[in-house]
């Protein structure tokens, strides 16, 4: 299945991620898709630490590390310099740096159609600082600042980004690396702002056995808690695993049970949220179908 993915590695052994970190899995495939003609911009997040300490770097492409709120603007600065034309400028930012503190700079960059690919790797908490709640933490999840489980709901960054009408947008998962690889390649072939939101299960924060990262990533998609889709020119296209999940979702318990963070969650309320989410995405995808049907009948 992964045959046509290049063997070149730009994420080296010796990076300092936790065992089983799926954010590094995602980055590995992103860099494979982007190749060496790439500059990474990293706000404060796990990925800053995963490079290893100076003077070493586990990343095989140049990296500009920048303060939390600044990644999208710094990337736009690089992309705007005439000398960098033709280079892939990729922000690799966590959910905190994207949905919370970095949202203003990100919003500005998309509005200006900055020629960057912004990847948000979403581990659904501030994992680098020891697992505090971020805007992206789902309902019911235990973090160190929501010790009895989050009482309100995950911020839907995708709807916010969609409202900006970026040139290309996709939702992906570290558990589907081929899909991620393809989406990154496609995004990089498009001029303007691209946004890819990748769910990256985090064994340290979600409290599950390290070998289960891929399994849990797949379960998130199968139970309808995470979607795989592309959004271009106002059209939302669901990818196969999500289409299947919307038809027949896997039991939510399968996803929730192995994770310590969901201990004591009100599963009914979480299920209700998941159902709502599935309804929304179905509507958005169906709307296109309705639109097409209308066009056809005219």
């Amino acid at each position, binding site marked *: 299945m992964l045959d046509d993915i290049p063997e070149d590695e730009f994420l080296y052994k010796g990076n300092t991620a936790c065992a089983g970190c799926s954010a590094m899995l995602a980055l590995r495939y992103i860099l494979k898709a982007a190749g060496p003609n790439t500059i990474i911009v990293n706000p404060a997040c796990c990925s*800053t630490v995963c490079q*290893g300490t100076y003077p070493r770097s586990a990343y095989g*492409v140049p990296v500009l590390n*920048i303060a939390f709120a600044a990644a999208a603007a710094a990337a736009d*600065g*690089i992309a705007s*310099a005439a000398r960098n034309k033709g280079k892939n400028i990729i922000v690799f930012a966590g959910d905190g740096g994207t949905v919370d503190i970095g949202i203003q700079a990100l919003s500005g960059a998309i*509005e200006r159609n900055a020629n960057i690919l912004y990847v948000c790797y979403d581990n659904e908490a501030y994992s680098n600082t020891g697992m505090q709640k971020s805007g992206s933490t789902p309902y019911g999840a235990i973090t160190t600042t929501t010790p009895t489980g989050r009482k309100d709901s995950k911020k839907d960054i995708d709807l916010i980004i969609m409202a900006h009408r970026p040139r290309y947008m996709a939702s992906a998962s570290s558990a589907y690396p081929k899909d991620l690889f393809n989406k990154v390649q496609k995004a990089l072939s498009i001029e303007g702002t691209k946004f890819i939101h990748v769910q990256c299960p985090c064994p340290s924060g979600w409290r599950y056995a390290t070998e289960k990262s891929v399994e849990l990533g797949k379960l998130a998609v199968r139970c309808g808690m995470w979607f795989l889709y592309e959004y271009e020119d106002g059209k939302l296209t669901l990818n196969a695993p999500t289409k299947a999940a919307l038809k027949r979702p896997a039991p939510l318990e399968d996803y929730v049970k192995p994770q310590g963070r969901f201990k004591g969650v009100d599963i009914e309320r979480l299920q209700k949220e998941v159902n709502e989410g599935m309804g929304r995405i179905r509507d958005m995808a169906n709307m296109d179908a309705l639109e097409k049907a209308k066009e056809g009948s005219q």
Partner: protein
Amino acid sequence: MKKMATGNQAAALAVKESDVEVVAAYPITPQTEVVETIASFVETRQMKASYIRVESEHSALAACIGASASGARAFTATSSHGLLYMHEMIHWAAGARLPIVMANINRAVGPAWNIWAEHTDSLSQRDTGWLQFYAATVQEVYDTVLMSYRLAEKVNLPTMVCMDGFILSHAIQPLEITQPGDFIPPINIPHALDTNDPMSYGNLTAQNDYFKFRRAMHDAQKEANVECRSIEKEFAERFGRKYGPTDEYRTEDADTVIVGMGTMAREAEVAVDLLRKEGMKAGSIRVRQFRPFPKLNIEGKKVIVLDRDCSFGAGGILAQEIRFHHNVPVYNIIAGLGGQDVRYETIADLVRKAKPEGEFWLGVD
């Protein structure tokens, strides 16, 4: 070529002549004219640069940091709250050793809202590692921006060119436009991001290395003190206008010196003339270069320091610098805050009444 220009236009014109590749800015009073002028240069193709209309000052400097880190010459301008909103990025630019040049139009900080001149905004960025210059004429704004690119790129530290809001930013004075030619050579940032030689900048640096970077910044500030003198000398030889870390006025035989920065220090020169007529051996020193702080020629003199700023609980910031660098008594006058009108007659009067040491707030004490 001679023309009439405001301080703001002078900054924009100097940027136009400096081969700047990326400008990123957010408007704020009284800086707006700088970014408007540059925008019109870019859109009418008088200037070949990318102009990024960012959504905040934090992003303005972040964009300049990105551009500069990738090897491009970058510029931004701001003022007051904009500068403070950049504060985190101000540290970052210096720590990343990026030769960005920024014009700061000095303005008071709220609350209460006040859009008029005060130096507290830029002086509160004193310890960030930026080189800082304070201009007092339109020509000096222009020339200082040109020299700043040379200096910043020589020592790899960002440079702030400051001018008083409205008093200088909106004052119209004659300006000699100088094409710098090869005075500013093509930019070459030694640590620019390079896809052929991938390095990671700004990642985690442990206890055994971090302090070495800090020391290197400190050394670069000291080096700037030497480099700036040779840049000023070359500038004078090429273009005929002389600058130094300070601008002294009638100090040769003075036993009383008024020390200040920006336009208030120019006003002090008129006060000096007045006092000289009365027989007082007065002189003035205008501090142009605040970081690195220069040695002043004040030993054995009665020193009166004019501060358009205050470090609450400590007093005038310029006065503190002088007390730190010189073992002399200082009479510190805090005046001109929030654009408070300070005329030469007032300065002369304060000098006449000055005590050897102490602090005096104009309009309060």
